[in-house]
């Protein structure tokens, strides 16, 4: 009798699902509306990207995401937001999802229905009634990874690859509150390199072998694999998840070389620094390579690099812009002298200086007075989405 009842219930459930699915077969009009809303200015697309792949290390993908297996969970995250480190399809993401307050029930239903069926996804349609019910009944707070997983758990076989994780030391280097300075092997730089993380999640590689900023990035967190790197024989080249938004000119590298810049096993190098031509500061009459002199930690741990060109000592201090959308390089030159600063044009970044004049060849011309102290700002054209403070802990204090 019990068995019969169970079968009957299962049968009913099965029927219900079939009926429900059949009913929710996505309407092309709704999909079209959802696509438009998804791709609207400042909407989902800004973070999750047009292809739904998100951004490595920060924004999880929607295309093929295991997290879409429960529409109620998707509705809950969309309405209430989710802050904290999450694992999606086995990969780690640190950024937070803010609650979507601008869309009504119908719009949210259209967006989720679109997401559930775009990029090869094959999920159910969501109705505005479902969204309305959730809006009325869900707890009002922002979800944490723990609370969302408790309310909408994963089936067992997906639990390992999806959920949350305890941030380790690598993770802690994202969202630092003080600058972090590491000498280590960096891709795309001479072996005498610096990796620096700034408060505001601006990261850069500075090359002591050529006395210049090599590149800057903001997405995907700071360098990773530190534990291995700093306890082994020292061979690994540091890795990071993001793509630099700014790369300084490297006229001895071809675009295709960039794929090989982290490799260690070459027979000969692409070039050596004894004739590196890309030092950006040109002083008339001085035809020699800059010399690296060291660095000082200033203003709470920012590295101020110092190097010389001829008899002139140059100091360079890099910090994040106030809006955290780029970096400011502050230079001093002593004794002051007129210089030409060869700016590197960059598609992903906007370079600017308050002082001096841009010459016809694109270089920045500074008089001796201006060159005594000047700033160059590098702004990212497509800045990283904001990280919610506290999403990951700050770098552990050594004391």
């Amino acid at each position, binding site marked *: 009798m019990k068995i019969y009842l169970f079968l009957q219930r299962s049968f009913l459930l099965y029927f219900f699902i079939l009926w429900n699915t059949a009913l929710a077969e996505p309407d092309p009009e709704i999909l079209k509306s959802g696509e438009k809303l998804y791709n609207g200015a400042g909407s989902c697309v800004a973070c999750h990207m047009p292809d739904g792949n998100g951004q490595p290390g920060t924004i999880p993908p929607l295309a093929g995401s295991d997290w879409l297996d429960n529409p109620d969970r998707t509705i809950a995250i969309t309405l209430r937001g989710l802050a904290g480190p999450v694992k999606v399809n086995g990969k780690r993401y640190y950024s937070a999802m803010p609650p979507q307050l601008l869309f009504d029930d119908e719009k949210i239903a259209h967006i989720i229905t679109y997401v559930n069926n775009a990029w090869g996804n094959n999920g159910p349609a969501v109705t505005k009634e479902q969204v309305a019910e959730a809006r009325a009944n869900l707890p009002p707070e922002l979800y944490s990874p723990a609370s969302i997983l408790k309310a909408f758990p994963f089936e067992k076989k997906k639990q390992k690859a999806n959920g949350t994780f305890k941030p380790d*030391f690598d993770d802690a280097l994202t969202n630092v509150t003080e600058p*972090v*300075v*590491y*000498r*280590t*092997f960096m891709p*795309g*730089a*001479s*072996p*005498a390199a610096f990796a620096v993380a700034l408060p505001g999640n601006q990261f850069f590689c500075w090359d*002591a*072998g050529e006395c210049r900023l090599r590149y800057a990035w903001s997405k995907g967190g700071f360098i990773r694999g*530190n*534990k291995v790197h*700093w*306890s*082994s*024989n*020292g*061979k690994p*080249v540091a890795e990071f998840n993001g793509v630099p938004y700014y790369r300084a000119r490297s006229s001895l*590298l071809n675009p295709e*070389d960039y794929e*090989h*810049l982290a*490799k*260690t*096993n*070459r*027979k*000969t*190098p*692409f*070039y*050596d*620094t*004894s004739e590196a031509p890309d030092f950006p500061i040109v002083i008339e009459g001085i035809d020699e390579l800059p010399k*690296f*002199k*060291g*660095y*000082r*930690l*200033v203003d709470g741990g920012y590295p101020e690099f110092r190097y010389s060109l001829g008899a002139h000592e140059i100091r360079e201090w890099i910090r994040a812009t106030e809006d955290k959308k780029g970096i400011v390089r502050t230079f001093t030159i002593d004794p002051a002298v007129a210089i030409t600063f060869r700016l590197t044009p960059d598609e992903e970044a906007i370079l600017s200086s308050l002082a001096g004049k841009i010459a016809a060849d694109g270089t920045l011309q500074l008089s001796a007075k201006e060159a005594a102290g000047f700033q160059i700002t590098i702004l990212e054209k497509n800045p990283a989405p904001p990280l919610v403070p506290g999403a990951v802990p700050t770098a*552990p204090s*050594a*004391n």
Partner: protein
Amino acid sequence: MKRFFESALVFACSAGILFANTPPEYTVTRVPNPPSKFETKQIDGLDFLPDGRMAVCLPSGEIFFYDTKADQWQLFAEGLHNPLGLVAVSNSELIVSQRPEVTRVRDTNGDGKADDFEVVSDGFGMSGNYHEFHFTPVRDKDGAIYFALGTGSSGDGVRSIVRGKFDPRGRPGRMHASTPFRGCVMKVTPDGKTIPWSYGHRTPNGLGFDLKGNLFVTDNQGDWVGSSKLFHVKEGRFYGHAPSLTWKEGFKGAPLETDPEVLAKMRTRACVVFPHGTMANSPTQVLAITPEANFGPFTGQLLVGEMNKSRVMRILLEEIGGELQGACVPFIGGSPMPGGCNRLGWGPDGSLYVGHTKHTWAGSEGITRIEWGGELPFEAVSMNLTKTGFRFTFTKPVDREIAANPATWPFKRYYYQYHRKYGSPQIDLTPVPVEAIEISQDGKTVELALAELKAWHIHELTVAGLKAEDGTPLANTNFVYTLNRLLENTPPDPLQFGGSASRGGGGSEPAHLAKPIPVVDPAGTVYQAEDARRDGPALQTGNSGFTGRNYADFGTGEQSIEWVVKSEKAGEGKVMIRYALAGGGRPLDLVVNGEKVETLPFSDTGGWKSWGDLTRPVMLRKGDNRIALKTIGKTGGNIDHIQIVEP
């Protein structure tokens, strides 16, 4: 709990239970580990500040200070690139060797944390090869700084962008020097100029001065280094590892295309050789026993650490014919001191601190402290060359009866070949009988006259069963004296090189190397292949370097070679098989008295003219025994002879 554990260790040491070599008058304790955020406890640099605190650096790039009295660690600096040595200048200033630079690390605002990192020297290249380590800065009394640059490994290449000039002449080889001054000891003059000071180093993990201001550096066995070594560093000299010659002014051509005889003539010999496998495989820092050290009656001698073993060695040097040479002997070693004895320093109380590391090789982590209790250990204070042999001086009077027995002093001699190949066998290994023994009135000095003293040969003995008058056994018995020069009439250096230009080794052996008779043990008996019963293998002479009249050349199919060897008694003996095999991969079964013992994995000897050996324990009967090598489907290598050491 931790405290209890440490006390237990101290007890175990004092009771003389756990250690292998450490004299019982010395105790070994662990120091708590620095609180690295990377969880590594490897110690790559160690020195003491004027105020008595210990400074250590870790592979993580962190530098910590340790107050030995308060048992407190404090982070001083972080973010350095694999620093492998530091020297304290003041309580707030260190000189640190890190991969890209020698750096002056200072706390300028008095908050206890470094805030200024000044380049003292970056006047050298980096190919980005992980093996290009930058070792131990030391300072002389004038303020000059010396540091040592490791070569790159063929286990990896170079990076896409290298620092400094890239020179392809230095790129080939097992260990390479493709950017400036890799494989050199460097000097930063007091006025700040960086200059190459000596050439020919492979992995010079450790510089140090003696009390007279002589500079020493160690090197690791490998290509061009037959066995690990200690060199007395002098300006402009070349110490044997070829690739760094790329950067020597006036050196023409490519080092690896240069005739090894030319290189052998250029090189300066080591003042001490550490036999591979028994004494040291990877020697580290050099530290003089200062008058302030409280470490027994050895002031002025040098200590050298060893990575692969739990071992700190003592070095007994003397000047002969205008150059330093002498002996090494194990000193501190065995549990509870771990291996990886990488960095050494004297604590404010005169005890020795040892920093341990591994970097994925053999070794360990953490810090140990070795304290002398004040009682005299029974050790040799010195080993000096005489006109006829050696004179040992001991800390205590010896047992005259044991000391007067020639069997107590089983000397042997040999040399390591100088060649491009990795390592070297012990060549011309010959027992050297003691012909006369004279014991001084006070019983502390023993003069040994040897049947022959041969210049340019290593003379080694493991003193057998010597006790002091009071019954104390000699704590450390293995003495290896690198006899380059005799007190008078030293013959010219026979060079003892092998290989030819741009070849890995082998090649035509120079005349003085013809027919070397390698012996694993002076007590062994050689049985030549031509005297064996052969079923298949042909006798050949085409590849030089074999002993006797022929060697046996295995063909394919079922083939075997069998010797009948004699043993005085039953028990476990040893068989050493001398063979040559280019490329490896030709195993043979070892069959003793009709029973298969094991399949022997004969490895590549580096060419058909390059002979190696393989040693296995074998159970022997009293009387005749049959020892055979049989094919297992494939062919085998060339077999020169076997040697049997009886039980």
